[in-house]
């Protein structure tokens, strides 16, 4: 996370939040507006919770996520979750948003179809898969099982 940068004398002001935002016209700010604020990342209360992650694994199968993203999220029609790389951001808030709203390459929107609680549980599971450094492939290491359609 980039640290917040602020100044009360310059013409440009950065305000940190979930994303940094350039405010070009400080005169529109209300009096007393905090020009230096700490990031308030969205927290997932299930993050790292083993029980929730186990339930998330079940939801991942039950909602047919597995057949798109592969067994254990190894990648299939949809991208891998094991590589520590994220198309639309990997923070809990980002992952929640991807599941809730869907994404343009075909990821369905689950918001309103399943409970937000379940989306948070899925978020915890999906993030728990992201652990491998796959930057280098040297063709001598182990392999994973994949299935075709």
């Amino acid at each position, binding site marked *: 996370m980039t640290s917040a940068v602020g100044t009360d004398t310059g013409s440009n002001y950065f305000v940190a939040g979930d994303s940094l935002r350039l405010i070009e016209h400080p005169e529109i700010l209300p009096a007393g507006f905090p020009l230096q604020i700490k990031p308030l990342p969205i927290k997932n209360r299930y993050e790292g919770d083993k029980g929730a992650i186990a339930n998330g694994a079940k939801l991942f199968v039950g909602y047919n996520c597995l057949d798109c993203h592969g067994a254990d999220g190894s990648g299939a*029609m949809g991208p891998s979750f094991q590589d520590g790389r994220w198309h639309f951001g990997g923070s809990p808030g980002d992952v929640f948003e991807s599941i809730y709203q869907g994404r343009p390459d075909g990821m369905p929107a689950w918001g309103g179809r399943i409970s937000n609680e379940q989306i948070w549980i899925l978020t915890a599971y999906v993030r728990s898969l992201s652990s491998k450094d796959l930057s280098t492939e040297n063709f001598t290491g182990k392999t994973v099982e994949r*299935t075709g359609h």
Partner: protein
Amino acid sequence: MKRVLLGHAAIATLMAVAACNGGDKGATADSASGSEPQVTSGAATGTASTSGARIAVAHAGPPGEWQMPAGDYASSRYSELASITPQNAANLHVSWAFSTGVLRGHEGQPLVVGNTMYVVTPYPNVSYAIDLAQTGQPLKWKFRPDNSQQAIGRACCDVVNRGATYADGRIFYNLLDGHTVAIDAVTGNQVWRTKMGDLSRGETITMAPIVVKGKVIVGSSGGEMGVRGWIAALDAATGKEVWRAYNIGPDKDVKVGPKFKPFYAHDRGKDLGATSWPGDTWKTGGGAVWGWLSYDPALNLIYHGTSNPGPWNENQRTGDNKWTASILARDADTGEMVWALQVTPHDMWDYDAVNENILVDLPIKGQMRKVLVHFDRNGFAYTIDRATGEILLAEPFVPMNWSTGIDMATGRPNVVETKKTAQDKNVKDICPSLEGGKNQQPAAFSPQTGLFYVPTNNLCMDFQARAVTYIAGTPFIGGNAPEKGGPGGYRGEFIAWDATTGKKIWGIKEPYPVWGGALATAGGVVFYGTLDGWFKAVDARSGKVLWQFKVGSGVVGNPVTYTGPDGKQYVAIYAGIGGDMGLLIAGDVAANLPYDVRERGTTLPDIARWTSWGGELFVFSL
């Protein structure tokens, strides 16, 4: 030890070779013992061999052009061009190449009409008209269709397109997001665009259409998404839908009526497309039409296959599940079903029957028969009477162990009990794998030799079925099927097949599944490309590799040949690994997606050493 059928070899050791071996091995020629090739005098007309074997329908347009996906309605992929011969094929070289600007699986083939070549790319399905008459092959036009990005994630097995077809000054092809378009061949302008599929329900289109009597025939993809498969005809002039036939459901919807006369008793009965399913499960039962189409003008029949039933988990759909995994013959004017042959009733291995149906006349048991030859995913090569749907011959063309053979009285395969898949069971070592003995990669036929040239897979699988819920727009699969190399230590073989006897004549073993199609020529040379990027010219009679060239990416496309403006014979092939093999199985061949880095898969553990995603057309000549 497990029983395996391999051509006519009876018993072989299965799984003798660990899945991690064999990837580095080069291809080796292997002449099958026993019968000799049906060699005949080289009649360069291509109309008939001395045995009388002939292609049922003439090549579309002049011999030097390639106007249809397979060159003709018969799906023969045979050309009468004969300049390239076994004597001179070693002198082949690259004449020019063209980047399509698109990565992913380049299945299908270009068209050549006059002095113009037409290329259609995978999603976003850009089409190009290339001027062959000018040095440097400049474009005449480029067409970039409106094509929904959502389609990328709704296509099960990569965002492929299997090509366009030409008729009456127009190029017709399908868009991944479910549209069919007609493009003016001269200007590149869109003449019409018709929405045929519903993307929100997982319907995409990947197949190559054909035009029959002024109608464009198209079919849906999405057998892994719980679609209800269909085939439809559009007016080539206006794009208006003329008829649409579903492949599952009541007779009215599947167009079963008075004309329907299936050969086998189990295919007769009222509303079988619905009653051979429990409850309403037929509504999400698959049966898509994503493969190749053939047409016999004399019988006025269109032939097409249908995909697997959905879901893979067979417990959720007891019954035959008609008309999935079937070969269907339909009246070209109305879409009415005339005969049906369900090659894999109640499929439980994902054995789609969408592979091409090649229409030829062959001497069988001393009698000339009008047949359809079909190399099915299930591992059997069928020689079928194309007027009636009667199986004349069905023999395994790859190692298999799920069936002991076809019951010729019923037309049904005899299934090995221990290879039946079931919910919550892990059934081990089923051959062929769900990719089939052959997949979309189309075979070719030469009337000179009377032989079929067939790109095949040699893979086996474990199959773990599980309960699954239908959720529109998500996969409806309910199964996992890790694959491994089949018996013998090779994963694919390019074979020559005699469909009058059901015997393999020769084979070229390949380290990887042969996912690209074949081309046969009157010069006595056949062509094919490999997943690891070799494009090869082979002696049609002996199977000897005459020449090979390493192209820029793995080949999953189909070669075509044409006469250039300079009068020379050219051979064109796409390079661009992808499709089910490239996207799902060879998961690590991509390099352009920083957010999607995948581990090597066990099925093709070394493929990424040899090739990466690409998108290029290569053109060769002497």
